[in-house]
């Protein structure tokens, strides 16, 4: 699952965006109501979930997207550092969920410039330069390579 945006039009509400994603993954709406409640609670959006996504701040949209994407157990999930958006309480919850995801044998591909974040969740590192992989090694080596060649 590679997703950095909702699949729905920004004119549609958060509920509709979540429903579309749920249908995409599950193919039906069985169990959607508890899933939605969990997403609303995790993202902390409350009643704002009923408003069009176009009115959300970047942080709200990122929180909702993260909550939806990690609400399922995917075989592989690609994320960028955007999930760090939101208050410290949300960040704590998000990091906990990431660990649960990895413990559940999911493969996480994370794009980030933050050493700290990468060290928390990743073992292997890929460094890209102009769309090409220039280093593929364990995370420590890849980070060293990145910092050496950054200039």
């Amino acid at each position, binding site marked *: 699952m590679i997703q950095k945006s909702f*699949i729905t039009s920004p004119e549609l509400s958060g509920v509709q965006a979540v429903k579309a994603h749920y249908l*995409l993954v599950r193919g039906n709406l069985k169990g959607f109501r508890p899933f939605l409640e969990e997403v609303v609670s995790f993202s902390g959006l409350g009643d704002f979930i009923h408003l*069009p996504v176009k009115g959300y701040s970047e942080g709200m949209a990122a929180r909702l997207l993260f909550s939806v994407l990690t609400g399922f157990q995917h075989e592989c999930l690609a994320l960028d550092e955007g999930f760090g958006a939101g208050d410290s309480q949300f960040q704590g919850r998000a990091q906990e969920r990431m660990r649960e995801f990895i413990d559940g044998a999911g493969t996480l591909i994370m794009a980030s410039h933050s050493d700290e974040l990468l060290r928390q969740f990743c073992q292997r590192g890929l460094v890209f330069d102009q769309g090409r992989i220039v280093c593929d090694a364990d995370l420590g080596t890849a980070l060293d390579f990145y910092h050496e060649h950054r200039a």
Partner: protein
Amino acid sequence: MNTVRDTIRDAWKSRRVWWFTATARTRARFARTMLGSFWLGFSNLLSIGTLAAVYGTVFKVSDFRHYVVYLGISLVIWNSLSASISSAPNLLEHNTNHLKNTNLNPFFYVLEEWSFHLQTFFQSFFLVILVLSFVKGQIVINLLTLGWLPLFNLLVFMLWLPMVVCLLGARYRDLYQLVPIVLQLVFLLSPILYYRESLGRFGWSADWNPIYQIIGPMREAMMHGHLELHKVLAMLFVNLVGMVVALKLLQRERPYLPFLI
């Protein structure tokens, strides 16, 4: 690399999603209106009534009731066809964010747009047919008995032609300017406001007009209970070829789309 078969299989698997997102868009469009999606049919009826009164007088039609039904069926089909074609050139542009940030096949967004236009079409079509059936009751029976194949042709045509236009529109931006002009010309050249006989020695232009070949057989089936089978089957063949071409073009263009839009 996905094959055409994979694309169709994925589209089928996600059918509930693109139908749902299209329905949600239709609902959002009429949110907080009193008449809701009734507006779709009502706006068509309004233009049919006005154009029939004006052009019925201009062309001095002898049978006004016949002309209203003729114009009504033609116009409701034309409106849906032209709306789906005119929105096509910038369809991918509208979905830039989705196309660059998700790994969904772009066919998903083509199907979503198609569903949106189908829902709009059916809501207008049924209301217009209901009203026109008071003028000529036979059209409902003819639609049910003979109209389904021309209707199928219309629905498939509304899928593949806008798909080709949107893929070409992503690469050749001139289409944004060209499509409205071509649509206007096709409208004026198609026997929609006037009878085909009025074209006189230019009657051949209707035979080579693909949009008229969608509208004409459907109108003929509904109004006169006559299925122009050779034309309908020829159009079915064109639709099948068009669909394959559109899907092949999508496969070819897919890797370049994020860089073009």
